[in-house]
């Protein structure tokens, strides 16, 4: 019995007709889910008594953060797999999840200030959680810049795997930063040992957004991975010519 070659996808270019669709079917599901979540949040979710309508930013802000954490956890896990097995598919998946994670982190860092301005009276403060999240954004950007700066495939995969693992170490610190430091950022409302301190109407909206964001995150990673397979196949055919 023979096993599949490690990282064999790029070494044996697949015919174009056998490749999957450019838009993942899961992406369609994610879009429908997001539309349903938007409609529910805007029209069918009550306005919070103290914060007013700005509290509804929570429903997109927190699921974006969780999707970023999921993506960067995939980066770390696949980086470990790459360092262990040397499988280039793991490296490609880590790269894909890193790029998608950066998009979701950008969503977190831009929707957060839109909530902070009406509630705190300022767009930004050097609070522990905000600062650590910004630091994670720079680390993830650095991860992708590093990947673009090294030509040798094995070296690029090895160095970026180490950075990807180190970046993910920050995630639990970000989540626990509101307990470890005296911060302005609100305490967790849903992700905490006790039951969620949120009315059922709001909780259902939050869970809807969380599900839609998670599916969107997975769909984007799958689409980015498929793009990576095509790009690597093109590089193999063209003899190392960059396809970006």
């Amino acid at each position, binding site marked *: 019995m023979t096993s599949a070659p490690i990282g064999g996808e790029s070494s044996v*270019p697949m*015919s174009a007709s056998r490749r999957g669709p450019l838009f993942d079917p899961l992406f369609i599901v994610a879009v429908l889910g997001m539309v349903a979540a938007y409609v529910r*949040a805007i029209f069918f979710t009550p306005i919070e008594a103290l914060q007013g*309508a700005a509290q509804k930013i929570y429903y997109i802000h927190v699921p974006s953060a969780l999707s970023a954490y999921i993506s960067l956890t995939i980066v770390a896990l696949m980086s470990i797999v790459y360092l262990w097995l040397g499988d280039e598919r793991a490296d490609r998946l880590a790269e894909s999840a890193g790029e998608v994670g950066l998009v979701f982190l950008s969503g977190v860092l831009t*929707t957060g200030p839109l909530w902070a301005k009406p509630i705190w009276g300022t767009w930004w403060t050097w609070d522990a959680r905000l600062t650590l999240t910004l630091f994670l954004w720079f680390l993830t950007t650095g991860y992708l810049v590093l990947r673009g700066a090294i030509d040798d495939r094995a070296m690029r995969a090895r160095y970026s795997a180490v950075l990807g693992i180190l970046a993910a170490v920050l995630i639990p610190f970000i989540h626990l930063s509101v307990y470890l430091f005296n911060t302005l950022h609100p305490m967790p409302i849903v992700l905490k040992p006790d039951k969620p301190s949120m009315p059922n109407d709001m909780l259902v909206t939050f869970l809807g957004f969380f599900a839609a964001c998670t599916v969107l995150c997975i769909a*984007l990673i799958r689409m980015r991975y498929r793009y990576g397979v*095509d790009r690597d196949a*093109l590089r193999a055919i063209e003899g190392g010519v960059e396809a970006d």
Partner: protein
Amino acid sequence: MMFQPSGPPDTSAYYHAAYVWAAVLYGGYAVLLWVRARRVRERLRASQDAPVSS
């Protein structure tokens, strides 16, 4: 003058901005990814269809 209790100030513009921005960001990334994927796939197809010179 009596204090008139009122609800929270209207901050709906902020959440509308956040929702529109999130849709633009995530939708824009998906479109960008589709454009990149389509471009690479066209080049890949052209490379595979090109006659092999001996």
